[in-house]
């Protein structure tokens, strides 16, 4: 069963009098439990595709089923609800709230989900221990290393048990060793059955995934699966 089903998605932007066709008809499916990388040079439409799959934006045309729910027609707060429940984001520059503790940062999606305070704390701690940072839950981001900050961000992405973990250049701001550690964490999560979508322009990072979709000029250029060893 496909957790994500994208059919013939297009996205047009108007820049002044010009219309830019960022996506020109993209179709693919992602199965439950897949670890997939989406690659492409800048300007390829990769970011636009990511925004649409991440429910941050809506397509101009085409259909997008997430967990068998049509989401391409949803707007505003409905999409916010989907993002909250179905998608966990990990960003290149961590995007942690600077003045909040690690635990508070992790609990943020639960606050927006309306989970009660006791559960928030319990699930926040669970998520932090999943990334091995329960001992640092009272630390502010400035008191954590880059790798630790990214792990806090991963804990935040996981805390509401999303269908998809969505990582946008998660190792882009990390040195190779911590980058490797973070990738290892993704592998562990994948092994536990987590569906992961990785957006990257680095071949080495993409090579970690089972499957790579390569985008160019608003179209899928290739969709390759690694042979299972």
């Amino acid at each position, binding site marked *: 069963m496909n957790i994500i089903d994208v059919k013939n998605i297009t996205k047009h932007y108007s820049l002044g009098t010009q219309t830019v066709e960022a996506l020109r008809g993209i179709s693919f499916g992602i199965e439950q439990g897949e670890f997939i990388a989406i690659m492409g040079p800048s300007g390829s439409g990769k970011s636009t595709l990511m925004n649409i799959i*991440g429910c941050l*934006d809506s397509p101009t045309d085409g259909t997008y089923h997430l967990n068998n729910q049509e989401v391409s027609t949803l707007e505003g707060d409905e999409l*916010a*609800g989907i993002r909250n*429940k179905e998608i966990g984001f990990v960003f290149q520059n961590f*995007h942690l709230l600077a003045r909040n503790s690690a635990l508070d940062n992790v609990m*943020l999606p639960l606050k927006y989900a309306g989970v009660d305070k006791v559960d928030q704390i319990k699930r926040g701690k669970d998520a932090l221990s999943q990334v091995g940072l329960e001992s640092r839950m009272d630390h502010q981001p400035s008191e954590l290393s880059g790798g630790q900050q990214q792990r806090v961000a991963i804990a935040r992405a996981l805390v509401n048990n999303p269908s998809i973990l969505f990582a946008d250049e998660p190792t882009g701001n990390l040195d190779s060793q911590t980058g490797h550690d973070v990738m290892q964490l993704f592998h562990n999560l994948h092994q536990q059955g987590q569906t992961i979508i990785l957006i990257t322009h680095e071949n080495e990072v993409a090579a970690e995934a089972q499957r790579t979709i390569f985008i160019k000029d608003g179209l899928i250029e290739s969709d390759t699966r690694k042979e299972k060893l």
Partner: protein
Amino acid sequence: MVLQESISTAVDSIRANLLRSLLTTIAIVIGTASVIAMVGIGSSAQRAIDDSISNLSARTLSVYPSRGRGSQKISAAPLSISDADALLKDKEINWRVSPEIRGSKSLKYKNESISISVIGARESYLSIQGYEIDQGTFFTQRDDLARKRVAIIGSSVGTELKTSSKALVGQDIDLGGVTFKIIGVTKSEGSSGWSNPDEQIYIPLLTASDRVFGRDRVDSIRVEVPNTYTPEEAMISIERVLRREHDIGPGEENNFRINDWSQFTDLQKQATAIFSALLIGIAGISLMVGGIGVMNIMLVSVTERTREIGLRKALGATQQAILLQFIIEAVTLCIIGGIIGVIFGSSLYFLVTVFQDWVFTIPFSAILGSVMFSACVGLFFGIWPARKAAQLEPAVALRYE
């Protein structure tokens, strides 16, 4: 998101930009402070006026001879001691009547000579005026009828004569060529604005009439009416008696006038009210300016925190949650300003009460009201920036540099 959560986020963000936040609230502080100071000062002034009225257990009216007015043919009939006696004999209202003869005379004691305001009055004068004797006694009705040459001096007359008032009790002085014996000193009353009872000399009415001024024309008749009568009832009664005494026919105008001193305090009340209204206007303007300042800083804050807003939206914040967060931040900012303003305003008001010797009373409703109003200012001026924040596109906001 829970309200409490939004509030702690708001407080955090205000704390993060503490100086900027405090500077922003200055106009709110000034506005609220002036409201509090005004309400406080206004209510104390009011109380002081009310007290001065209720201190007099009764209402005092004054009757003056009418000055002839050009076009109208009113013969300027003087008020006389017999008018006062007629009022006294009238039993319709159990009022107290105090006719007064005033004039200026020179007062000589040893080698010192000063010009002094002389008041010839009845023995009831002291209590009607609410004055008290500090030393010696006031003259009696018997002294008055006997036209005795006795006098009571105000508390600071002695100093003017290069001695002390107390030392003058029992001494003879020369008042306009007539020798008087000082039999008492009044307690210090302080200046009432147009006359200073401490610098006057009081002598019996008939002594003043026969021995000092040589006239039975009085300058005014004070009538003290119990509070159970309205000033209008009292005025009608006074009019009735005096019109009869002065032989004024029906349709003719009074040749005397009656002043109700409470009218003066009414004017004072009005002046206080106008003054308050003016300052509340100023407070309103500064709250308005403050509100615009808050709006400005909230717009800056929204721009600075675009990525944070993008992140919150990516994590599932609804427009309403973002709207609420920023409105609460603006409201919190204004409430903090309001509270600082209340503290400043109360301190200012407290200083004024200390100097004026007033009672310090701020109505709780004024404190609550001005803080609530500040909150409303925050709400009103915070809505637009908050809407801007709430309507940001998450994908765009996340990548904002």
